[in-house]
């Protein structure tokens, strides 16, 4: 293996940088496609080629073997700097990235964030100032010289954070320097192009001085390179001289080529053909013009509903294989059958198998795999677990055997029963250590089957799912953040439909048992993804769509089919609050400080059974804490924001804003157990098959059931989940406050108490994930 071979194989891992570059490339591509469609001449293929080449150059400088060897050879390090200072920025500007990047952003971000920032006179003034030649030139030179002084260079070599600061400042200063030279569309500078000649020549002069200093120094300037081993026969001084020459010659070319180009263009002059602007452009006050990207293309003439449809993206039911399966009448039943078989095995093993949780399917599958997969499924898709729910499979049998026909009692047509059952479920998980009690878990599963059978057998519709099932309520609330939603394809078709099979049913298909009338359905609450509406609709007008900003949390006063007005549903608000605080309580109950507190409490109360302190903990976490915290936030919010509504309605509105943060805590917690203990299913499956007399899978590999080391990325995943939950909840709380109306000051005062509550919960969540957590469902060390 020679040095070149080693060099070519020495690729560092820089995932964050690669992510940023890829994301930038994707956003640019998205925007360029739209602009190219409107004006192919201006937005030709050369633009993205230049931009992507610029990004690739940054990647080459910082995420290739150049980065790996930069600490050992000064000339390699200098090559890295040249790429960042002289090659990447002009390429990026040649791609005229402003409009494609803005256009490529998702619409909510573009209209709510990017546009106001671009319109801002302060932002335009600052940008115009830093890209003015009189500022950009000294900035560029200062950054170059600062980081090439011995002290600056050594600092960057010794500390990775300063190294990052060095590269960031190089890139930013170079982008400012090259902007007036390239003049990317749509900039319209106020100065003459002749200024660029001395601008570039003087830049070359300072580059020459710096290069000469490095090249002609009689001893190494940077002590670091005298202390590292020498490679390839290069002494430290030879290496420095080579670095100086590299900086000198290619550096000069980089500065002088534009000088010749600009000079030639100005001397011989070119009449640019008058070009019709593709977009209206306002005359700017500074070098960054206000641009209007109005022009919605083909969707301009579309109806609001059609535009809304376009905004929702593709229909999953039209996807090649998955769509076909979902549209198939046997699709859902086959999923339910599969889950029924798994549930059957779980019950069997729970009742007859070993009592130790980690060795039993009922101790492992529901509490590690199923819970983790449910939240992941909600995050990436939708409520697929209600779709595949085996508990409702015997519904048809129940309707035949039991005298179905009653309406669910009016006084129970709310979520209070489900709230109570959910609270009991959360408490009993901890109080009875369900994760370690396969027998009890099996009986709970049997109870679910029995409950669903009886309720759906006696009462019309899907009363069990809508008013009883605690798991379903968790899925409904979690699905509020899911990307997929069942909705109509074309509202105008529904407006002419009088038979309404989607809710009434047809001869061949039942309608929606959850009382969700598709044209008035909004969001995923109470939707089990059963797709009965899809089967029943005679116009094939119901699909499964993806999209951002579906309005799940907006306009809580709007009527929603099957739900009414969310702002008036106290039961729903209590449900989401229970799930949010339940997330933190459930996770917190497994960490060492909380367990120690419970043990101490049990001791103080006179050696009472553990169920007592656990019950106290849950009363505090699920009742007292929400009551006090939400109550306080409501009082302060109403007072500060001068909100007229009743305390209950104010609480209810803001409660829905907590859903993303609550979901992120469930995701972090259940994801943790899934990612650390997914292997536990292997020895359990092997043991079960041997119990059945099959040794196909071999002897149980119990080492997979033991505690696995928590990989560092899992903690980061947990924190990242909480981060996004925090941001989403803050945004929603602000929107609720803004919807109450009033001045900016009142909105802020109305939002502030809830914002603090959200941040407080976030901090608790971070504390929980950083504490050691009990590895439930796994065998102890050596077991």
């Amino acid at each position, binding site marked *: 293996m020679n040095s070149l071979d080693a060099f070519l194989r020495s690729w*560092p*891992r820089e995932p964050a940088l690669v992510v940023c570059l890829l994301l930038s490339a994707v956003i640019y591509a998205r925007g360029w496609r739209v602009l190219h469609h409107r004006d192919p001449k201006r937005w030709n293929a050369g633009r993205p080629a230049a931009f992507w080449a610029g990004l690739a150059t940054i990647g080459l400088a910082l995420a290739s073997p150049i980065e790996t060897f930069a600490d050992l050879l000064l000339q390699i390090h200098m090559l890295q700097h040249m790429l960042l200072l002289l090659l990447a920025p002009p390429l990026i500007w040649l791609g005229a990235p402003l409009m494609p990047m803005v256009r490529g952003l998702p619409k909510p971000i573009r209209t709510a964030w990017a546009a106001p920032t671009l319109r801002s006179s302060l932002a335009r003034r600052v940008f115009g100032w830093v890209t003015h030649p009189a500022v950009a030139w000294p900035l560029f030179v200062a950054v170059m010289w600062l980081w090439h002084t011995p002290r600056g260079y050594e600092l960057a070599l010794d500390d990775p954070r300063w190294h990052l600061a060095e590269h960031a400042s190089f890139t930013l200063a170079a982008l400012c320097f090259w902007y007036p030279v390239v003049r990317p569309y749509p900039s319209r500078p106020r100065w003459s192009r002749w200024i660029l000649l001395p601008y570039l020549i003087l830049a070359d002069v300072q580059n020459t001085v710096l290069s000469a200093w490095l090249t002609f120094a009689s001893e190494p300037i940077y002590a670091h390179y005298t202390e590292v081993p020498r*490679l390839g026969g290069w002494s430290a001084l030879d290496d420095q001289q080579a670095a100086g020459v590299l900086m000198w010659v290619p550096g000069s070319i980089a500065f002088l080529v534009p000088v010749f180009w600009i000079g030639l263009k100005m001397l011989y002059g070119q009449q640019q053909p008058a070009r019709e602007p593709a977009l209206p452009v306002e005359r700017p006050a500074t070098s960054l013009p206000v641009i209007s990207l109005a022009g919605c293309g*083909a969707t301009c003439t579309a109806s609001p509903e059609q535009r809304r449809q376009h905004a929702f*993206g593709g*229909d999953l039911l039209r996807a090649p294989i998955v769509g076909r399966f979902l549209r198939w009448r046997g699709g859902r039943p086959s999923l339910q059958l599969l889950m029924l078989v798994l549930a059957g095995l779980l019950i069997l093993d729970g009742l007859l198998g070993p009592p130790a949780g980690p060795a039993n399917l009922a101790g492992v599958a529901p509490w590690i795999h199923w819970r983790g997969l449910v939240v992941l499924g909600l995050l990436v898709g939708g409520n697929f677990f209600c779709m595949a729910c085996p508990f409702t499979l015997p519904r048809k049998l129940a309707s035949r055997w039991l005298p179905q026909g009653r309406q669910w009692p009016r006084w129970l047509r709310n979520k209070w029963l489900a709230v109570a059952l959910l609270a009991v479920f959360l408490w009993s998980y901890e109080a009875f250590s369900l994760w370690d009690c396969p027998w009890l878990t099996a009986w709970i599963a049997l109870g679910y089957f029995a409950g669903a059978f009886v309720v759906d057998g006696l009462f019309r519709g899907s009363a069990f799912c809508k008013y009883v099932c605690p798991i379903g309520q968790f899925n409904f609330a979690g699905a509020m953040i899911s990307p997929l939603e069942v909705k109509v394809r074309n509202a105008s078709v529904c407006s002419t439909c009088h038979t309404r099979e989607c809710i009434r049913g047809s001869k061949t298909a039942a309608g929606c048992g959850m009382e969700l009338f598709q044209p008035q359905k909004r969001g995923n609450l109470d939707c089990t993804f059963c797709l009965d509406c899809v089967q029943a609709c005679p116009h094939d007008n119901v699909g499964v769509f993806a999209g951002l900003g579906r309005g799940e949390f907006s306009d809580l006063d709007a009527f929603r089919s099957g739900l009414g007005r969310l702002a008036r549903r106290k039961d729903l608000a209590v449900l989401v609050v229970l799930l949010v605080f339940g997330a933190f309580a459930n996770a917190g109950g497994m960490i060492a400080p909380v367990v120690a507190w419970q043990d101490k409490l049990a001791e103080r109360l006179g050696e009472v059974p553990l169920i007592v302190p656990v019950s106290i903990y849950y009363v505090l976490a699920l009742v007292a804490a929400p009551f006090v915290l939400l109550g306080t936030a409501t009082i302060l919010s109403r007072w500060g924001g001068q909100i007229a509504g009743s305390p209950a309605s104010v609480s209810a509105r803001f409660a829905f804003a907590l859903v993303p943060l609550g979901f992120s805590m469930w995701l972090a917690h259940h994801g943790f157990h899934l990612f650390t203990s997914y292997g536990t299913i292997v020895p359990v499956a092997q043991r079960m098959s041997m119990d059945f007399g099959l040794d196909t899978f071999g002897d149980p590999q119990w080492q997979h059931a033991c505690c696995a080391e928590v990989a560092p990325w899992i903690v980061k995943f947990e924190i990242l989940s909480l981060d996004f939950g925090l941001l989403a909840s803050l945004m929603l709380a602000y929107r609720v406050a803004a919807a109450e109306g009033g001045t900016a000051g009142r909105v802020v005062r109305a939002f502030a108490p809830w914002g603090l509550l959200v941040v407080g919960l976030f901090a608790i969540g971070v504390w929980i994930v950083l504490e050691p957590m009990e590895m439930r469902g796994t065998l102890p060390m050596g077991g």
Partner: protein
Amino acid sequence: MSRAAPYSHAISLAAAGILAVALSPAGALADGGVVRAMRSSGDYQISVFTSPNPLVAGPVDLSVLVQDAATLATVAEVDVEVAVTPRERPYAAARLPATREAATNKLFLAVWIDLEPGWHDVEVRCHRSERSGSVRFAMQVGSPRSDTSSLWPWYTWPVVPVALFAMHRVLARSPRRRL
């Protein structure tokens, strides 16, 4: 399917892929760091690097560059063994082979060792056929950084978008226009 739909899917897929890359373990391969020892021994010149800097208890990367003592050419075929002995618990000495697979820079051989706080005596032995060399040095490992302090960028970055949003609310006083 609408015109925007395929691109929405593409964006979603791209975002998922990007997230997968972002969450992949970074810096899993050992590489470079601070020079702890660099001297000739026998047939070899042996340079030893450690990282992180400063050394803290936990996983520590130890990278070794083996060069021919006479020509300073990198030696491709060599076996390197690293022995680390905590001074306070000499019975807990660890002896591990360094490999090229564990190193980002393929001129090096590297190994990850879990170290506790305190002073450690390190011996790096290189040998192949008749040729050998070794180097000894001591290094001090500090107390471990808590997760709270080492992971602070992960839970503090939301401050940035919150600050940007606050700035946006201040800037966006004019009525919104469609873009």
